[in-house]
Structure formats: structure tokens, C-alpha cells
């Protein structure tokens, strides 16, 4: 009986922790084709613009940048800026993700711009890393094509068993 009680308490704690972790994050896969046109707000709930494109690093499949079209908010006409995916906070808003970016007008105004559809330019580290630095996101070198990077595969953390 005592053992059962311990197990139950343990289960409760685990589910509470799960809930805490998922709060404020989006608990589903995001369909790329549904992202375009999605509005982005800042922490003050001001509209910053809308998402124009999602740029994927081909080898590992990491989304590197989200291209945001900044509208009249800046009073500068339409401008496009590249923002690392992890700079956004995604949360659940009905059946769709809500996109929030911690940025005020000044920050967007000075952000690295994207000209046209010349996304190839953003592929090289030399071009991409400053964008990450601007948005205070740690640049992670894309993993090599087929294998997991050595630091990951030699990591002592055990993989969870189902």
C-alpha cells in the first residue's frame, strides 16, 4: 500500500513537471506551408509584421531563419529581416501557433535585412552568424551531413527508453 502511494505521488509530480514545461511552448509539429502570412507580435502585443519565409539548412534540416516582413510598424515601408527560429516564442493559440518576438521598433529597425529572395547569401557562416549575434542567439555550426556530431554521440546523457 505504501509502495502504491509512492508510485502515485511520483506520477503526479511527473505530470505536473510536464505541464510546466509545455506551458508557453507549442505542443505540436508546425506545418511549414501554414507558417507563411502568420502575424508576429512583440511582448507588448504590438504587431511587428508577418512571416514571409522559412529558410532551412538542407543537410540537417535545421530551420535557420524565419524571414519576417516588417510592415508599417517601422514607418519605413516594407522591410524584410531574417531572424533565427529560436529567437521566437511559440505558444498555442487555438489550433495554431502564436509567434512572439522580443523586439521593439528600434531593434527591428537596426536588424539585418534580407534583400529580395537571395537566400543563398544567408547560407555561409560569415553571413549568418552576425544575424544570430544580433538576435542574441548562439550560433550552432550545422551538423555534418550524415552523422551526428561527435560531441552529441559521445554525450553521456542516456537516451530515453520508451
Amino acid at each position, binding site marked *: 500500500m505504501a509502495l502504491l502511494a509512492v508510485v502515485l505521488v511520483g506520477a503526479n509530480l511527473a505530470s505536473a513537471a510536464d505541464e510546466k514545461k509545455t506551458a508557453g511552448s*507549442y505542443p*505540436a509539429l508546425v506545418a511549414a506551408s501554414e*507558417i507563411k502570412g502568420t502575424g508576429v507580435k512583440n511582448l507588448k502585443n504590438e504587431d511587428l509584421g508577418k512571416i514571409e519565409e522559412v*529558410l532551412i539548412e538542407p543537410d540537417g534540416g*535545421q530551420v535557420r531563419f524565419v524571414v519576417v516582413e516588417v510592415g508599417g510598424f517601422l514607418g519605413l515601408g516594407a522591410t524584410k529581416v531574417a531572424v533565427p527560429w529560436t529567437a521566437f516564442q511559440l505558444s498555442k493559440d487555438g489550433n495554431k501557433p502564436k509567434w512572439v518576438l522580443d523586439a521593439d521598433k528600434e531593434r527591428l529597425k537596426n536588424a539585418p535585412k534580407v534583400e529580395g529572395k537571395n537566400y543563398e547569401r544567408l547560407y555561409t557562416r560569415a553571413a549568418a552568424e552576425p544575424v544570430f549575434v544580433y538576435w542574441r542567439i548562439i550560433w550552432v555550426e550545422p551538423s555534418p551531413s550524415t552523422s551526428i556530431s561527435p560531441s552529441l554521440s559521445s554525450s553521456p546523457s542516456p537516451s530515453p527508453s520508451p
Partner: protein
Amino acid sequence: MNTTETERGAATLLAASEIKGTKVTNFQNQEIGDIDEVLIEPDMGQVRFAVLSVGGFLGLGSTRVAVPWRAFQIVKASGKVKCMLDATREHLEKAPRVDGKNYERLYPAAAAEPIFVYWDVEWIAEPETAAR
């Protein structure tokens, strides 16, 4: 999968809106279908699956299967991005299907991991999942 460094790599970023409809061929150079959707893990922005719409190749009518991104070989040939997948008709026939747009189902590790196993791609738990 015997992939070499030189075969792989498109040396450009792929625009998600342009991936849809990209033709996928297998190693026998048969056209097996086209990419219908790209599904992104929200926290880190890792593409987990590409949903492949398998056309008449199977003789089964249109079928959609979820394939881990890393199962594809993406190459750039004469300026165009090309997607290759090491999959015979038989392998596709038995592959885990996707019904409709119910992508939420593919989010939990319990649903996603078997698909990685099927395609022989190492499942990497999201940091969040791993921490549990």
C-alpha cells in the same frame, strides 16, 4: 545508407515555400512522388518530417507517407535542388502513412520514433523530451 560528402549538400538555404511540390526520386532514378509538407519541431526549429505524396508509383493511388528529413539526400544539380530517397516500391508500400492533416499525431516521441526506425534514421529526442 551509403552517402558520401560530395553527393550531398545543396550549399544554399531551402525556402520552405518552394519545397512543396519538389519531385523526389529514388536511387533507381524512378520518380516516387513529391513533397507535400514539411513538419517542424517547434522548440528548436528542427525539421522532423517531410510528408511525401506518393503518386502512381505504387499503383495504389495517392498515398502520403512521413519520412524523416535526414533520410533524404538533397543535392544541387545544375542550379536546381533535387531530392533523393533510398526507397524501393516495396519500402514505400509498407511505410508509415499520414492521414489528412492530422500532424499533431506525429508530435509525441511514441508516434515519431517508429517512423525513424522504419527509415533507418537515428531518432534524436528533443532536449525537452530527453530531460524527462
